[in-house]
């Protein structure tokens, strides 16, 4: 693809910790009609960072994540991904849209998104899901994609489900498959949008374990989650969003151990 995109040679081992800035966001606003969901959120993630975003429902954390890969168009703000500033133009209705769809597609293909509802493609088997983007978007050879895909399925514990359609898999298996699909594009950053919220309680653990393993190997991740305990254990940085602004942020020990804001204290009390 482009020269400034760092592609790790081995998809299972992300690039060494050169600590370059993978995501940089400044003063992001998002408005749906009269409702302002994000009121100026900034963040930055270096390679190897695991940033967890917590907050009540309606706090804007999912919207923020969706703005990063432009599933929602931010109303204003600076978004820099892979060191690339995303150019926006006015849509004529007070909002803005990406100026260059190619740029957006290029950026998206470096961000591995995992959805709350898995969204595995229902008409493809698991392995077909995993190799779809490498083969049909990134132009990888089929054999090569297959080899990588099989490795990835093995590491999420789904080798046996290789040729099974998503409809015949449990929620936890589908979500692990979706993680393998996201890893297959060799992403610079993994984006998790409440990956365990749609799962039955007994299936949450298997998915969290896969995510924790990714964190351990130094993968850059942005994680929107309701699992406080999990966020505390894997994150290197935690952001607490409330009503579209960052109410408090910092290392997990500090945020969970000695929260300053009254709202965060209350939030931690109610969820734990």
């Amino acid at each position, binding site marked *: 693809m482009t020269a400034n995109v760092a592609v790790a040679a081995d998809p299972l081992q992300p690039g060494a910790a050169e600590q370059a800035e993978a995501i940089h966001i400044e003063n992001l606003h998002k408005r749906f009609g009269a409702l302002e969901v994000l009121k100026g959120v900034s963040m930055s993630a270096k390679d190897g960072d695991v940033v967890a975003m917590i907050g009540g429902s309606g706090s804007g954390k999912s919207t923020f994540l969706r703005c990063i890969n432009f599933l929602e168009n931010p109303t204003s703000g600076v978004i820099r991904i892979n060191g690339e500033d995303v150019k926006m133009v006015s849509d004529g209705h007070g909002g803005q849209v990406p100026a260059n769809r190619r740029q957006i597609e*290029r950026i998206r293909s470096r961000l591995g998104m995992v959805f709350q509802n898995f969204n595995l493609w229902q008409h493809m088997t698991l392995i077909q899901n995993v190799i779809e*983007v490498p083969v049909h978007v990134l132009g990888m050879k089929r054999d090569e994609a297959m080899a990588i895909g099989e490795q990835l399925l093995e590491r999420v*514990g789904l080798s046996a489900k290789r040729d099974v359609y998503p409809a015949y898999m449990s929620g*936890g298996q589908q979500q692990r498959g979706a993680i393998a699909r996201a890893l297959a594009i060799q992403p610079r950053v993994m984006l998790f949008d409440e990956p365990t919220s749609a799962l039955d309680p007994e299936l949450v653990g298997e998915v969290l374990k896969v995510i924790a393993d990714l964190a351990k190997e130094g993968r850059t991740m942005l994680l929107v989650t309701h699992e406080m305990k999990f966020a505390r254990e894997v994150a290197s940085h935690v952001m607490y969003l409330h009503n579209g602004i960052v109410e408090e942020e910092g290392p997990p020990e500090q945020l969970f151990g000695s929260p300053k804001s009254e709202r965060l204290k209350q939030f931690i009390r109610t969820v734990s």
Partner: protein
Amino acid sequence: MSNVLGETEIEVPIETFPIHKEKDASSLASKLPPHRIVLILIGLALVASAALFMRWDWLPQYGGLILQGLWRTIWILVVTVVLGFLLAVPLGLAQASGPAFLAIPARAFCTVIRGTPLLVQLWLLYYGLGSLFPQYPWIRGSELWPYLRQAWPYAVLALTLSYAGYEGEVMRGAFAGVPKGQLESARAFGMPRFTIFRRIWLPQAIHRALPTLAGEAVLQLKSTPLVATITVVDLYSVASRVRQDTFLTYEPLLLLAAGYLVITGIIVMLFRRVERLIPSKLG
């Protein structure tokens, strides 16, 4: 959850359902339950009595003509279903998510086609266009004229437009019915729009529409006899000819019915086979 990061069993022993339920092929009894045997016997008795008590001596004389008619019915059906479907995809897409300047004409087309009898459309094209064309010398002089003077191009055109009109509506629903998340995850991975359409949206829409499309193909088969009214010699018009020549009432009609029944069976079987390529649990 006491220990989130602790030892969690990764492989959850959930039974995978077999995609196609395997039938026990070895036992003949399961394939031939008593009621089915009775039905088969009744069917055989009907065929035998038709063969014994009715007149079929005209068959050898008209055999060639019947095969020709059968062939014409089949190719008209196949060509119009394929072409009609190819038109239905953009018609459905325009209505499901196109801009107004495409969606409105598409909707208008489907409404007009679905709101008027096929026979009227056929006659309007054949007698309308067919009598308009000869007035223009450049058409008469064109390469296409040898075809435009014949009836079958009008039959194919009318049946194609008809199938496109009905299936455009079916495809609209099918496109709209594909869950948003399926397309969103494709967008999230940087798929270009046409790739999303080709790889995700269209296959899932077709799969959703297949049972309806199969039914519509059967209906299309039974619309084909209308082409006899504009002098195209299909299976039905051969049967009419036999009736006129031999003054037999039932025999040619029975044979005709049997012919359409067999083609219908083949259509249904073919569509089932395609449907089975993907498991039916979608979305």
